[in-house]
């Protein structure tokens, strides 16, 4: 039996020979598809439960706080000054938080684990794949997951009667924008991490951002200086953006929120691209 017989025909095996003759730079082989295909196959054959829990988390928050707490809070003032239910007020914020959490988890803990423990990337990087293929594939998968979650959550909002305008459908792409901002940064930050203890710092930043970014109550409760601090944080822009979209009210601030994320994506991608060697090649 001859495993490599074909490569010894004059001229070599056409397919593997062709694959060898492609020319790339040191970091990228234009094969993000293969990384994405692997991710989809792994999801299909393994952990559905993880997927489901990611979907249910914001739904459970919405039921507990929106419906439960909402019963004593009553109606609150929405972005345009109109009265909306407390559940309708916090639902877009929870969607923004879920986009952030999913993207950060996928681009930090997940990457850290696959790098240092599952050794998945070591295997990938001994093929024609470059670090950029791997990074782009993983970010794409994170965004795809974010898209599914956002779609599911928006549907739940619809079922609960929290959607009053067709504009709300735009929450789905906006969630992906938010996820992209966090994912592009998260992977760059992971390249600086060496131990689990350092990884915990990520949670240390995320939790206060979740609690205080005008998620459950308006920014106006804070003194001016705290307001500025919150407004500098990315999550607040995500919360405000989705909250505006959910009721179909757009202001110049909407452009600022979107712009914030566009800048974040550009900077995050630059950071991650600059750290690829540190992240994957040591």
């Amino acid at each position, binding site marked *: 039996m001859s495993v490599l017989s074909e490569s010894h025909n004059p001229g070599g*095996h056409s397919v593997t020979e062709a694959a060898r003759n492609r020319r790339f730079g040191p970091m990228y082989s234009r094969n993000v598809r293969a990384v994405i295909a692997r991710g989809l196959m792994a999801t299909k054959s393994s952990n559905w439960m993880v997927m489901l829990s990611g979907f249910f988390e914001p739904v459970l928050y919405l039921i507990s706080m929106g419906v439960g707490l909402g019963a004593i809070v009553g109606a609150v003032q929405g972005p345009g000054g109109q009265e909306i239910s407390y559940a309708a007020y916090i639902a877009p914020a929870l969607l923004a938080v879920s986009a952030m959490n999913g993207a950060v988890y996928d681009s930090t803990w997940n990457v850290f684990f696959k790098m240092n423990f599952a050794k998945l990337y070591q295997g990938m990087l001994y093929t024609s794949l470059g670090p950029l293929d791997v990074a782009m594939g993983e970010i794409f998968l994170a965004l795809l997951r974010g898209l599914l979650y956002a779609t599911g959550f928006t549907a739940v909002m619809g079922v609960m009667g929290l959607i009053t305008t067709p504009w709300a459908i735009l929450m789905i792409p906006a969630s992906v924008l938010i996820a992209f901002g966090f994912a592009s940064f998260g992977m760059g930050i992971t390249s600086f991490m060496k131990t689990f203890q350092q990884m915990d710092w990520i949670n240390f930043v995320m939790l206060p951002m979740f609690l205080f970014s005008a998620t459950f109550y308006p920014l106006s409760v804070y003194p001016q200086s705290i307001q500025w601090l919150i407004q500098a944080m990315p999550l607040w822009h995500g919360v405000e953006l989705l909250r505006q979209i959910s009721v179909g009210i757009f202001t110049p601030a909407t452009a600022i929120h979107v712009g914030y994320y566009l800048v974040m994506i550009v900077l995050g991608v630059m950071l991650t691209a600059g750290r690829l060697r540190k992240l994957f090649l040591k």
Partner: protein
Amino acid sequence: MSNEELSRNQSSSQTQGDQMQYVITAENLTKTYGDVTAVDGISFSVPAGEAFGLLGPNGAGKSTTMKMIGGVSQRTSGSLSIMGLDPESHGPEVRAHLGVVPQQDNLDEELRVRDNLLVYGRYFGLPMSYLRPKADELLEFAQLTDKAKSKVDALSGGMKRRLTIARSLINEPRILLLDEPTTGLDPQARHILWDRLFRLKEQGVTLILTTHYMDEAEQLCDRLIVVDKGRIMAEGSPASLIREYSTREVLELRFGSERNATIGAELEGIGERLETLPDRVLIYAHDGEAALEQVSARGLRPVTSLVRRSSLEDVFLRLTGRSLVD
């Protein structure tokens, strides 16, 4: 004999004229991690079709060298050329020529056995029409056909190793990098693996192998370098290294732990070299039986005696020392 002469001798049958077909050329290859120098200016060349071994104790720099060849670790200085390309500036292209069997299996535990091969092939940009029959062929080669749909973590250590080797062949590599391919395998699995590697070599695949099993190196390698503390200690074929650094035979004598240490003086002059270990005394001699007769003639009565052929292990221990390395 210089490095180049050795290489030329090895593959004179494959190439005509002065132009050697080196698939790997390393010159002054150096890698430091902070203050630690893992690889300290090593140079070697490997012609196409050769089985080339890197031997050395733990921490000698073998795996680091392998990583630099694959372009997944950046060298600190020196030059490296794989199939005429620098792995640092042409990583994906260089690796298209390589098959890699890492020291620790890094199979994709989230995928099933056959899918591991298919997905890995996709990483090389190979089409499914090629990969499907190729995956089946490789499963056959690795004797894993009936495990095609199993989960990876259900495989035994030997099966995982064979799958890793099968996976490394999915792109029909010209060069196979094997980092301690049989560590942790039982003797049956090792022999199956050696057989598979032989066949690949027969088909013209260049094998680059690290190991600290001397019998494995003797079995598989045409030529090898012994590396210690990041430097090359010796280079040559297994037979020439034994000739150069050891004698034809070794006489092993045991006088009991108490006496081994003190008996050395009384054995002086027998054989070419004497080595006293806590549990036995080794006499390196061309003729072991003759040396044993001389020992008896001096009235010394060892508890046990054994005459054996010199092995690569004797060379290795002579070159890298007997103290424990971590």
